[in-house]
């Protein structure tokens, strides 16, 4: 799986979505992406890509698109 596929899969599995539903997805725009869902998603991203994000970055990670830029900061090729 490419990094992009793994990234999408984390969203799809956690929030029970299809790939077509990911673009434009924002924190708290769906029921499952609440603060609890967010922590689980963040832990999964860290495990998948073997990184540790800073707290401000975890707070910034508030949309599907925003996540790309944040992961790139940690050297993830995505």
């Amino acid at each position, binding site marked *: 799986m490419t990094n992009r596929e793994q990234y999408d899969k984390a969203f799809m599995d956690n929030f029970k979505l299809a790939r077509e539903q990911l673009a434009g997805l924002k924190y*708290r725009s769906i029921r499952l992406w*609440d*603060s*609890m869902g967010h*922590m689980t998603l963040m*832990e999964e991203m*860290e495990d998948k890509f073997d990184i*540790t*994000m*800073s*707290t*401000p970055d*975890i*707070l910034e990670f508030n949309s599907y698109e925003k996540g790309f830029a944040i992961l790139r900061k940690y050297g993830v090729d995505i």
Partner: protein
Amino acid sequence: MDYSKWLSCEPYEWKQKEKETVYLPYFTRLTELHRRRCGLYGRALAKLGYEPLHTNCLQDIPMLPILLFKHMELKSIMDDEIFKILVSSGTSGQAVSQIFLDAATARNQQLTLFKIVKNFLGASRLPMMIIDSPSVFKDREKFTARGAAILGFSMFAKHRCYALDDTMKVDVGRIGRFAEENRGKPVLIFGFTFMIWKYFCRALQEQHVSFDFSNAYVLHGGGWKKMQDCAVSPDAYKRRLKDQFGIDRVHNYYGMAEQTGCIYMECEYGHFHASIFSDIIIRNARDFSVCPVGLPGIIQVLSPIAVSYPGHSILTEDMGTLLGIDDCPCGRKGKYFSVAGRIPAAEIRGCSDIYGE
């Protein structure tokens, strides 16, 4: 000063005088903003006879009794701007407060909490053991203040581990694995004051098990009421954590759902500190005059973060004493104080009577 600039400052660097120079114009404007945007708040101000021109110092900023948030929907935003509604649980059987947040206010609360906690625990996210049960999140749509606090602090942690199982029994195996995996590394142990005492200290002692957690920070909050009932003083609490687990770094915090984010952390000397992100004024319980250092009274809390709801100046139902200003031996500037618990119910009614219909 806009709040993002505030966030770029160190949390305990402002002397009280400096702080009030920033606070007074900001709070005067914020009071005006809420008066314009929140009809109920405007009516309360009219009742209080508030006159902005007569606001010469911070203590002249009007305060709302915390009880009002339990009985009214106080918000200064349009319904379509609501991002999140915080609910306080309070004591069982009581009505709950509803706090309306827009996206900016919610974000500022989290960033503020991070700035404050970072001053005590450092910036890196620590492995976290939560002295609670995952069942606290059973109802995802509506969890308790305990659940909200756990989630709030989870942002600063990684690899969260729950010390209790679904039946609130201490999970010795899980705690042992957590201790083993993080041996010698700093970790965070988080929980409500009473939960740590009953379900961690006492429960492990009953099972005759002990762990070395000398690498841990303990962060606990939620009030001392139940600890008073079992006659445990803050000193005895700390001693117990030291004796049983070797923990030196124990920090209580004082805070409330009505002003989430700007918590008051207990320093190494056992004093609660107001950061630059909030302030306290101690009020005489009879006439609401300002109490000087050393005189107990009711705690008023001021928070510049409260923009989406008129909760920037609240009279709590807690008693406290101002211990000093700018001169705590820990080096943190601003006011520091102690908290003595809830005021008697009769007096609470007295306080809210002045806002009655």
